[in-house]
């Protein structure tokens, strides 16, 4: 498994964590099923892409 895909996985988890934290700190409501799921899926995808980019940047010279 390459460094980029490792980091993409970490980024996806981090995206979900960030959404849950935003809800816990009172800035976002995840009460609705569809609305909450949409936020979560978007966060996971964006986190995965950003994590993958970071992993690629950090490992391209190795």
């Amino acid at each position, binding site marked *: *498994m*390459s*460094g980029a895909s*490792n*980091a993409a*996985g*970490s*980024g996806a*988890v*981090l995206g*979900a*964590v*960030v959404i*849950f*934290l935003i*809800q*816990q*700190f*009172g*800035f*976002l*409501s*995840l*009460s*609705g*099923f*569809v609305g*909450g*799921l949409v936020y979560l899926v978007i966060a996971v995808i964006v986190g995965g892409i950003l*994590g993958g980019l*970071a*992993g690629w940047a*950090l*490992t391209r010279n*190795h």
Partner: protein
Amino acid sequence: MTSWPGVRRRGRIVQLVVLAAVAVLVALPTASATSVNSPKAVPAASLLSANATWEGKNISQANTQGSAFSISANQQIYVNFSYVVPVGGPNVTVARIQAFYFGAVISTDQVSTVTRFVPGLAPDVAIGGRGSGVMNWSLGTFTYLLAGLYQLTASLVDSNGSTVWSENFFIDAKAVDRVASGLIIFLLVLGAVELWAIATVGRSVRKARPKRSGPPPPKQWEPTPAPGAGSEGTTPPPDAAPAEPASEVTP
């Protein structure tokens, strides 16, 4: 031997499973969570009027996320329902407050209401009765786990179990005694671990890959035995220096 990427992949799967399990545990605390979708507000079609107050404030003041009522997660809230039933209107029996998370009910509090039927004071006043219900609401058994923004639904239910009035509002539950709730602590630790994993991804890849070796060293020339020759027969390479004649040792 297990490779480092393999361990990390398994660790990530475990983290995802734990995260999903926490979300499910939070979303399914009540066995009575029958509703999958948050109910829409039911207009007070069959009631003359109804309202609910949250510590004296009308819940309609907190109908957006930005105007949510701020409470402490272990606080008990005094909620007062009042309604007016028209003649021939529903027989309201229960006042209820439900909290939702991902569409599932995570907290339900309900009280019985008392309706006093009033005969028409005048022929043009068609008042069937007035009722009220008082509740001490709290987040319940998950006080130390739950904090954050939640949507609540206040509703009045008739004797058939039908919702005759409901209104949605929001609360912002602060963690108990300014200490982060259990879920916040878990999420912060998990986030730190994942950040560390991304920051050190280059190092882990270096460890996982074998050291890049240079070109192999030139092989030393070894004499190849001539076909059919004995063990002493050797063919020197054409560019090899002529061998020194063996010096005879004289005693």
